[in-house]
């Protein structure tokens, strides 16, 4: 598939295609050969202990981390190809970060319009129309002139999701989107993500929200030690895990404070 730049021509409509992905930081090998195909409209949740490489995996998909080896093909374009226009490729992927990363120098509308205007060359009016539609989608229309510092964590994260949506991405990448939130604010963000999934958005979600994964995911990946230990439907991976490591992890996450066997 190397060198292919045509969009949407992949076999059986695979949107994200990772082949034998490795990533090392110095002598620390974080990813040890990951193969993953995400179909259009599929919601894949990635769970695993901290330090297992799941965030690194997600960041390799849009090349925020450059893989040490292996290929990443997104929507038919091999973005690990050195000749790939990475800025163009990234437009097709929306990314939501654990720390929201809203631009602190811009208000909400500014956050949502800067990329459409400066990258896609949209007019201000056009960009603001799209921005308002996406703000409504996350239920924050009344906050368009607020600055990030004036919003709660949950509101910031919903704005961040709206910001990613303004670029009309083919796939959304969520990197622990609720991990930095107060517990009572998690629900609103998960609701937005749930409705995105229902609209058929292709989603790759690194999360600690096992319940969310169980309800929303088409497929759950359990990653540990830089490899996919187990994958399958939520019923299988969360409901009846085959691997010892998966069982131990789920026991720790679902029943914190209890001793694991």
């Amino acid at each position, binding site marked *: 598939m190397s060198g292919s730049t045509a969009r949407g021509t992949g076999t059986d409509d695979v949107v994200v295609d990772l082949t034998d992905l490795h990533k090392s930081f110095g002598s620390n090998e974080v990813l040890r050969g990951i193969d993953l195909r995400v179909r259009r409209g599929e919601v894949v949740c990635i769970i695993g202990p901290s330090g297992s490489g799941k965030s690194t995996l997600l960041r390799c998909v*849009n090349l*925020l981390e450059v893989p040490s080896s292996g290929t990443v093909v997104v929507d038919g374009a091999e973005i690990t190809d050195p000749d790939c226009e990475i*800025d*163009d490729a*990234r*437009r097709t*992927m*929306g*990314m939501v*970060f654990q*720390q929201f*990363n*809203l*631009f*602190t*120098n*811009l*208000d909400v509308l*500014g956050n949502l*319009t*800067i*990329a459409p*205007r*400066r*990258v896609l060359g949209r007019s201000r009016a056009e960009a603001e129309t799209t921005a308002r539609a996406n703000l409504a989608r996350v239920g924050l229309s009344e906050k368009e002139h607020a*600055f*990030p*510092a*004036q919003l709660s964590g949950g509101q910031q994260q919903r704005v*961040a999701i709206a*910001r*990613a949506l303004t*670029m009309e991405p083919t796939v959304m990448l969520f990197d622990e989107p609720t991990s930095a939130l107060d517990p009572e604010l998690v629900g609103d963000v998960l609701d937005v993500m749930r409705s995105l999934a229902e609209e058929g958005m292709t989603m790759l979600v690194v999360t600690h929200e096992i319940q969310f994964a169980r309800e929303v995911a088409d497929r759950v990946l359990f990653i540990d030690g830089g490899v996919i230990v187990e994958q399958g439907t939520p019923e299988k991976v969360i409901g009846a895990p085959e691997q010892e490591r998966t069982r131990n992890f789920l026991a720790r996450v679902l029943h914190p404070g209890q001793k694991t066997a």
Partner: protein
Amino acid sequence: MALTRRQRARLGRGVQYAIAVAVVLLVALTADWATIGRAFFDLEVAASQFPGVIVIALRNTIVFTALGFVVALALGLVLALMRLSSVRIYRLVAGAYVEFFRGLPALLIVIAIGFGVPLAFGTILDRTVAITLALGIVGSAYIAETVRAGIQSVPRGQVEAARSLGMSPLRTMVFIVIPQAFRIVLPPLTNELILLTKDSSLAFLLGTTLEQQELAQFGRSALNQFRSLTPILVVGLCYLIITIPLSYLARRLERKYGSAGMPKGAEV
């Protein structure tokens, strides 16, 4: 000692006041006020300084400083980006530049530019150009470090968010990083502008016609002319007319681009 905490505080403050009053009295009683008055406050001499001190000297100081600062800012920004570059040679060149020019007295740089450049290139360097260049070089070495620190203080997540939206490194720098860094570097930049205002007095080293005198030199020539220290007082006040509003403006801007990350007039 059976003093309460409040009594001790009061006693401490009393001692401090007493020392302050003693020092003031000592100075006031030992100084020759009649001579000071004659030397510094000769109204006739003061009046004779006008309008020249304003229309020539103050104006030239502002022009030299403003031009020098513009050059320093542009050069400093480029140097800061070079120091942060992934290209090793850029980092080395910018690092050497900063270490070299930051370590030299401004006086040497003014002389080197004013006399060295015409010698080296066989050209005549306009005095305004020479002082602008010299001040620009002096200022840029400091500004480069200030701006570099400001850019580095912008959280990495801001850059990642911009890049993940498909913004190029340049757009990310221009629309996201620099506006945020600007807020952080505003106070040290004001400091640099005030320092340059004073360094512009080094223009006297390049020789001069009356029309080209800035404040310090204007004061010095008046000093010789009148045998009075009053011109020093007049030009001193003129410096403060520049620098105090600058400090005030900086505080205003700082408040406007508030610490909470809410620039009120932010234009996108």
